[in-house]
């Protein structure tokens, strides 16, 4: 079967050319047709989206956009809906994640975009979300109005299912004409969502497009990069640097680089009753999306002095990873991924030979844990269910161990008492951690999350202020002036 990706309003379907990419996993395969636009088509599309956004989207009340998104999400949450069925069928083949992971991940993720959650998104960034619809009085006097960009370009990356919806929805909420570039590793969800929106509210459907080009190469890219007012991009630092270099200086660039998540487990969380549960939650965070998410934990710092020692806790986590492997098989790894896991394991094995590390899990197991007793700096693992557990005397040591890697920090999972949660969060915040989650929720950020510590909506808009004095001065020119 061939699945056509993208959403290209206004372009003649007959005139499109397609690139075909095959994906296979779990004994099935699918061919996906990715749109390859000519430079003129790219230009026409940018102009159309910009024009439509100006005359349609920007004139709509935010409430209408929220309703349309809510309706689209409701359909995607409905397991009987044909599109949801298609997503559950195709996403495992394309991304390699097992069916249950995809199904559970989709549901919990999509739930963050229902109407109440969307309102929370808006409330999170705007004291008065009505500034998106018209001038609103401000406390200091005068009036304020927020405008999203005319043309917002999203450059997506990675295989985490439906990740693209996050920025796409943020763009729509601020009424930005939006063009999204699909990630080859998950080229489906954004296009499906856009088409669904177009079906629900055809006017909104005219204001967004989902495209594809081969990263960094095609002539089409230049058109998009030149046309956009704001570019929101995901990828590694090399990709982001290359992209930034191609943008006009006046274009606002909002990069989201790769990150390493880590966990902190306090001694008070380590008794014989709590430790096994905690181990299950940690194992869940490790397994969900195979540590491909920016929020996924790669290292756990475990405090000594609890009833359960770090070494015992490592065994609990190992047991849970083994148990999860029965329910959720690990994705089949590409050669480079296997090599990364093997390379990491090999290096840990060397440490283990020196007696300074303990390696749990056989080479043939779909998971590995290494446990070290000496404090160690934050470092990435081999991903795909490979975890390093570092025993520390006191969790207060951890900020110093992760601080050198500020640009890679984002999510920390913490299991500690309320007082220590705040105390640790204070120190972690200082060194660049932007999100504290409980174990078990590291891969599922809440609605309205400040991604990488930024404002998802506020960063997109520009404010227009009517100063109080301007309002006062205008009084002098009123027809009814005395």
């Amino acid at each position: 079967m061939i699945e056509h990706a993208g959403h290209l309003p206004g372009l003649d379907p007959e005139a499109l050319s397609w690139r075909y990419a095959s994906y296979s996993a779990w004994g099935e395969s699918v061919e996906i047709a990715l749109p390859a636009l000519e430079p003129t088509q790219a230009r026409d599309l940018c102009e159309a989206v910009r024009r439509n956004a100006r005359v349609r989207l920007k004139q709509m009340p935010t409430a209408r956009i929220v309703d349309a998104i809510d309706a689209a999400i409701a359909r995607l949450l409905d397991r009987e809906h044909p599109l949801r069925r298609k997503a559950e069928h195709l996403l495992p083949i394309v991304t390699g994640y097992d069916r249950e992971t995809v199904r559970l991940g989709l549901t919990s993720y999509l739930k963050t975009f229902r109407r109440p959650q969307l309102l929370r998104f808006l409330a999170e960034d705007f004291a008065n979300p009505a500034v998106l619809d018209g001038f609103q009085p401000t406390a200091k006097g005068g009036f304020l109005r927020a405008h999203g960009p005319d043309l917002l370009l999203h450059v997506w990356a990675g295989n985490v299912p439906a990740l693209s919806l996050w920025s796409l929805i943020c763009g729509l909420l601020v009424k930005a004409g939006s063009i999204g570039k699909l990630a080859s590793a998950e080229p489906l969800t954004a296009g499906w969502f856009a088409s669904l929106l177009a079906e629900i509210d055809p006017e909104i459907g005219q204001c967004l497009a989902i495209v594809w080009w081969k990263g960094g190469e095609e002539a089409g890219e230049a058109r998009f990069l030149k046309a956009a007012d704001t570019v929101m991009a995901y990828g590694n630092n090399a990709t982001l640097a290359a992209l930034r270099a191609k943008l006009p200086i006046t274009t606002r660039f909002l990069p989201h680089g790769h990150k390493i998540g880590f966990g902190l487990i306090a001694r008070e969380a380590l008794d014989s009753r709590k430790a096994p549960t905690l181990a299950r939650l940690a194992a869940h965070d490790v397994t969900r999306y195979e540590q491909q998410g920016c929020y996924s934990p790669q290292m756990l710092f475990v405090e000594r002095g609890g009833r359960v020692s770090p070494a015992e806790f490592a065994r609990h986590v190992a047991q849970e990873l083994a148990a999860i492997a029965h329910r959720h098989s690990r994705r089949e790894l590409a050669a480079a991924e296997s090599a990364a896991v093997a390379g990491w394991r090999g290096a840990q094995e060397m440490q283990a030979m020196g007696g300074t590390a303990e390696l749990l899990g056989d080479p043939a197991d779909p998971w590995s844990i290494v446990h070290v007793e000496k404090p160690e700096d934050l470092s990435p693992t081999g991903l795909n269910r490979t975890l390093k557990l570092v025993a520390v005397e006191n969790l207060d040591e951890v900020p110093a161990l992760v601080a050198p890697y500020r640009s890679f920090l984002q999510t920390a999972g913490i299991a500690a008492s309320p007082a220590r949660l705040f105390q640790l969060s204070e120190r972690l915040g200082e060194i660049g951690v932007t999100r504290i989650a409980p174990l078990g929720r590291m891969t599922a950020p809440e609605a309205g999350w400040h991604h990488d510590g930024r404002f998802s909506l506020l960063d997109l808009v520009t404010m227009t202020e009517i100063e109080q004095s301007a309002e006062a001065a205008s009084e002098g020119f009123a027809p009814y002036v005395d």
Partner: protein
Amino acid sequence: MTVVTQAEIVEALLDFIALPDATEAEFEAMALKLFAWQFRNNEPYKRFALQRGRTPLTVKRWRDIPAVPITAFKDLTLSCTPPEAATHVFMTSGTTQGVRGRSYHPTLAVWSRSMLLNFRKRFMRGRERIRMGILFPDEKALPNSSLAHYLGLARRECGTPDSEVFIGANGLDLDRLLPVLAEAEASGEPYALLGASYSFVPLMDALERQGRHFALPEGSLILDTGGFKGQSRELGPDEFYDGLSAAFGVPRAACINMYGMTELSSQFYDDGNAVSHPVKSGPHWVRSRVVDPLTGIDLPQGQRGVLVHHDLAHFNSVSAILTEDAGEIVPGGFKLFGRVDGEASKGCSVAVAEFLAAARG
């Protein structure tokens, strides 16, 4: 178990290397004997083998002798004799994390015999000597480089007296090299250029800038090794060998690639690069496997995995090495496809490569 001394091992290996060929059973017997010796005398390797549950008592096949990942040479001192007793220490050029892998040699007797016999057979092909131009610093400049030793030995034992090294403290000495190449071209006597793959790139570039090219006499040879390692532009195999052929008039079939590493004591060769990814093979005292990197299990012929080399000549350290090179077993040897690395993260988590790149700054 009879106690074996280093002298006995060296003698047994020299005899083994002197054989015209070795059957699977002969190789296995020698490999097991050597494994027992390394297990007893190389403490970190013993711990490694024990961790894998492999001891001389349980291992019955050479394929089950545990292969040490190549990174271990950075972290561990893998030597059967005290490292301070080594007459030569070869170090890798890799500067990942600033740590270099080391191989300790208490004697180069086996290393040299292995190198020469195989070099004569695969490169010299029955010739006694050939005039050589060497595009790599000599042993004085790089005393810890196994390649400098290799090329030094090649020049002394198989080069004519007027063979020269053309890389000095100031890099490639074009002013000396170009007249020599012109002279060789005019003389009608075959000439051999040997060096690191990346040394050939600036030479080809310089010739192209000057609009020059040579037609070295028939029978001339080129030997390159090691790839580009970020030291020059990266060229695809076709671009590289077409370039060599055009610059020096040496047909691609006479351009031989040597594949070796600091962590071994023997080398592999192809029989020319008329086509890309030619079959490579080693001498009868080396055997190669291709394994699944995760499980270490042998992959069937034709399936791509990671290369494991079992080099009996590397007696003082560890004979079985798990490389980071992608390969495929084919009739007559294996095909080599460069390093196994690349983007390990398909998502937005940081993977090791990106992290290291950032740490290096």
